[in-house]
């Protein structure tokens, strides 16, 4: 799954472009992919020492509420809260996408992983054939939140919902992600592909799953 993350400012903000967030407080859900996506969007627009983040809640509902209260200048959101924020008049000053990556224990078998890959591949095809028909899943996740429950399928920007059939992890991308996290002090040590990716299980599982891709 490809995750979309957006840097969002409230309707009254004077910020229209990401570089205008320099030295402004941006709430990030540290430890989550959306936070790292937020950091990457910020550092693409300003020197690192101008990036000013603060700890945001894990829940995007809470980060959105904090944004609207004025607790901070901006935050990073994912769907369906990007859509909620837009409906509330907030502006997206930057959006990005990143890959969700599975972390597995050593006891995951080739056969089970291949079965998972085949099922997910079929699901990706089903969703891509009718994205609008599946956006209800984003609403279902947030039952009890009136802002989300008020959304209609047509409110969603389908360009922000991207799915890709699963494939092996490219070593250069894994290395880049590791080195980038290390550069922020989020991880220590040198990247070693042999300890991070079990290429034998990965290759054999993808070969077993390939019959679906050919079909």
């Amino acid at each position, binding site marked *: *799954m490809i*995750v*979309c993350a957006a840097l969002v400012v409230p309707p009254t903000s004077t910020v229209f472009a990401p570089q205008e967030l320099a030295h402004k407080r941006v709430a*990030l*859900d*540290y*430890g*989550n*992919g959306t*936070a790292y996506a937020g950091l990457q969007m910020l550092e693409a627009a300003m020197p690192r020492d101008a990036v000013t*983040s603060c*700890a*945001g*809640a*894990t*829940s995007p509902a*809470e980060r959105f509420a904090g944004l609207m209260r004025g607790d901070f200048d901006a935050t990073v959101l*994912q*769907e*369906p809260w990007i859509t909620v924020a837009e409906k509330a008049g907030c502006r997206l000053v930057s959006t990005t996408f990143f890959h*969700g*990556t*599975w*972390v*597995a*224990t050593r*006891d*995951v*078998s080739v*056969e*089970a992983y291949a*079965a*998972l890959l*085949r*099922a*997910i591949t*079929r*699901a*990706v095809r*089903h*969703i891509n054939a009718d994205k609008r028909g*599946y956006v209800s*899943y*984003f609403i*279902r*996740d947030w039952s009890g939140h009136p802002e989300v429950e008020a959304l209609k399928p047509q409110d969603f920007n389908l360009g922000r*919902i991207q*799915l890709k059939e699963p494939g092996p992890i490219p070593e250069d991308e894994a290395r880049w992600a590791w080195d980038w996290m290390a550069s*922020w*002090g*989020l991880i220590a040590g040198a990247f070693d592909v042999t300890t991070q990716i079990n290429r034998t299980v990965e290759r054999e599982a993808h070969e077993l799953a390939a019959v679906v891709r050919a079909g």
Partner: protein
Amino acid sequence: MAMTMTIERVMAFMGLDVLVARDEGLFEAEGLDLRIAALPPDEIRSAAEGTPSKPATNQGKLQARGAAQMFQA
């Protein structure tokens, strides 16, 4: 006999494909009994408690104690 696998909870924004595969019986069709486990509410910490270098993340907690085999980062 079906294979079993337990993964940590996913949400649509990062696991729509998994949720659809589950609901449409696609794992079952592949002979995989996929179970989705969630942390007990009292164990969930907010990222607001963390710092950039010491985040209060919930990802991987079930895997770390052997209650799940995979999670999505």
